[in-house]
């Protein structure tokens, strides 16, 4: 314990001595972080410096082994580092799927050569990764995917199409699921492979959503040549790797909607757009909807707390954790719809005159929120999971 306190003191000093002025107090919204990569832009040059000093110490990936460029810290030390970064109001130096998804997957399933090839570049923010899973014909039923990889000696030739790839147009590499055996049972003919987006035949196109532009892309693969050594784990056993990764993605999305505090309260919105009578929101039906939303939001937060408290007390994970993605996303949708109801006709702005920036953001946020119950595992799939894995209902 004394060691940990010493580590905290040293860490705090190091961070103060080495963090550039231009990143102090920098608060980044979700999606605004530095994702690195060949195409990265640094409007704030101190952010690039910040990445550099942290990467050199391996502290962009604090718990990864040092031989791959990581910080080699224990879980407890990494927690201390995170706390100190937050306490000093510093931003995260690096974000992205390299750190959260493909990195841990390589550590779990990769060969030594693959780890040495890819992990250090992730740590230094040199290579940005995206995920190629879903296809137009394979969404919830991901295992039915059809993008074909045919082996020719040391190479696979890949043909097909991926969809819903976040930031494919800004990424350098893609980890992809491909079909390598069309005759086997669908989960047993899938391979997990790494593809350099600069390879000839790879083309990305952004997808426009009902809410406007989005980071999602379509990716077209025409006779793309990929070395066999880019296969992770084994040919035709990619589904095993994919399942491990899917869990990471679900908890990542759920935590983004974890019932946390928002800047403006419902009461503030209601006061502005509906008005108060004798100090109370002047529409009792809306008042009840606001109360219902706030109460459900608190119950959800308390359930997340309960799960966390049980984990801290050393109890095994409870069944309640399987509800976080579905309930969290539906809560966010209800919040957006409630704000829409409160703002009334002022929530109809797409752009331009007669609408404030906040109102236009509201409209776009509402539209975007309709996708929350679909992406990262639809609510219907979540209900299936609860029914079968938690309640043990039969197939």
């Amino acid at each position: 314990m004394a060691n940990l306190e010493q580590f905290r003191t040293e860490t705090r000093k190091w961070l103060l001595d080495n963090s550039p002025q231009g990143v102090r107090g920098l608060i980044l919204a979700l999606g605004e972080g530095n994702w690195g990569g060949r195409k990265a832009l640094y409007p704030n040059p101190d952010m690039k410096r910040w990445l550099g000093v942290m990467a050199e110490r391996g502290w962009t990936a604090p718990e990864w082994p040092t031989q791959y460029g990581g910080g080699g810290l224990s879980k407890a030390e990494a927690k201390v580092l995170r706390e100190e970064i937050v306490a000093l109001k510093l931003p995260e130096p690096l974000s992205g799927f390299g750190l959260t998804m493909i990195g841990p997957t390589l550590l779990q399933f990769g060969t030594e050569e693959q780890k040495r090839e890819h992990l250090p570049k992730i740590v230094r923010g040199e290579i940005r990764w995206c995920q190629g899973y879903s296809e137009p014909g394979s969404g919830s039923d991901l295992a039915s995917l059809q993008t074909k990889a045919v082996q020719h000696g040391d190479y696979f030739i890949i043909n097909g199409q991926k969809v819903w790839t976040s930031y494919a147009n800004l990424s350098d590499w893609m980890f992809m699921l491909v079909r390598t055996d069309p005759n086997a049972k669908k989960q047993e003919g899938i391979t997990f492979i790494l593809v350099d987006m600069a390879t000839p035949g790879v083309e990305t196109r952004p997808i426009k959503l009902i809410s406007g532009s989005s980071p999602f892309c379509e990716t077209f693969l025409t006779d793309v040549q990929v070395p066999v050594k880019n296969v992770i784990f084994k040919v035709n056993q990619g589904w095993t790797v994919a399942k491990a990764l899917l869990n990471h993605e679900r908890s990542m999305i759920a935590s983004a909607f974890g019932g946390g505090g928002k800047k403006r309260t419902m009461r503030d919105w209601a006061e502005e757009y509906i008005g108060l009578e004798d100090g109370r929101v002047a529409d009792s039906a809306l008042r009840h909807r606001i109360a219902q939303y706030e109460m459900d939001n608190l119950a959800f937060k308390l359930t997340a707390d309960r799960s966390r408290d049980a984990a801290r007390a050393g109890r095994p994970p409870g069944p309640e954790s399987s509800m976080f993605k579905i309930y969290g996303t539906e809560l966010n949708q209800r919040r957006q719809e409630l704000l829409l109801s409160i703002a009334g006709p002022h929530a109809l702005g797409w752009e331009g005159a007669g609408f404030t920036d906040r109102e236009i953001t509201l409209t776009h946020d509402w539209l975007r929120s309709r996708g929350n119950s679909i992406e990262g595992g639809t609510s219907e799939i979540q209900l299936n999971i609860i029914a079968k894995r938690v309640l043990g209902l039969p197939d």
Partner: protein
Amino acid sequence: MELVLTEDQELLAQTAADFIRQHSPVSRMRALRDTNDPIGFSRDLWKQMAELGWTGILIPDTYGGAGMGLADLAVVLEALGRTLAPEPFLSAVLLAGELLSRAGNEAQKQAWLPGIASGEKILTVAYQEVRSRYDLNRVTTKAERQGQYWLLSGEKIQVLDGQTADAFIVSTRTSGTANDPVGITLFLVAKDAPGLKLTSQHRVDNRPTALLVLDGVKVAQDSIVGSLDNGYDALSQIVDRATVGLCAEMLGGMSQIFDNTVAYLKTRQQFGVLIGTFQGLQHRAARLFMEIELARSSVMAAARAADANDPDWQSLVSLAKARCSDGYILAANEGVQMHGGIGMTDEYDAGFYLKRARATEMTFGDAAWHRERWARLHRY
């Protein structure tokens, strides 16, 4: 606040679960109903529960209790709620016992608390009137001063365990207008007081309640619980605390009917398959699971906040009651529906949970009433 059971609470929960399994299956509640049992619970089991220390959990140890909190009593009440055990925790322990502990004078505490802890005395609170709905400030039963005494007149409805109570704590109006929270006074009235008329009621959930008519009931000055005209604050705080206990019972009830329903889905066959394979039912069961987990978190938080006197404890009570009201009704309605025809038979237990779900919904404020209160507490 940590939303985990302590080791002691886990032990208490286990003991309670074992006790229920051995002594109080749902069939016992059914038998009390079928035999028209006049008191509606078992004096003998009540004594056993007292010996286990359950009746004294909230009572200070100077009066023979354990001086523990709602978070501890909640695990016992949840177990009892699973099998609809009707013993008088709500009336004697949560309402009357707590009211005397917190607002009573020394003589009143000495006279009653040890007897409640030992299971020998039953005491209840008469607070509800014909048009009071869920508002404790709507009191028309009046108390008029007559020299050294007070004369009480009025009607109270659905007094929990009225037929077995040795005495009643009655809310009366001593000043102010009909809905004024100021001017309410609580009086302790013995069951044999002249002018007191008790009529047993038969409620849909078979819990023993009574109509209480007071016709010029004469009581002494020292039968005031708390102080003159200031009874509302004490009463509403106690009802809030009792609501947490009620929610714990509701959590048990909804969990049990849910478990029964899932078990049925796994055994009932139609069209050559188990009905549990139907996705429509799977999804409804999954949603019900989530509602119950959310209710559980709310009850645990409310109990701990009440015990710690957190500044927001009352809004957490409203959260818990709204969640448990909606959750128990959903679980019970879905329970009947998913059992199909047999769910509608009296022979099957599902109906009991449905009836208890509604009765608990309409005790201490329904979900809508609590949402309104949440809004008021959050100043909108």
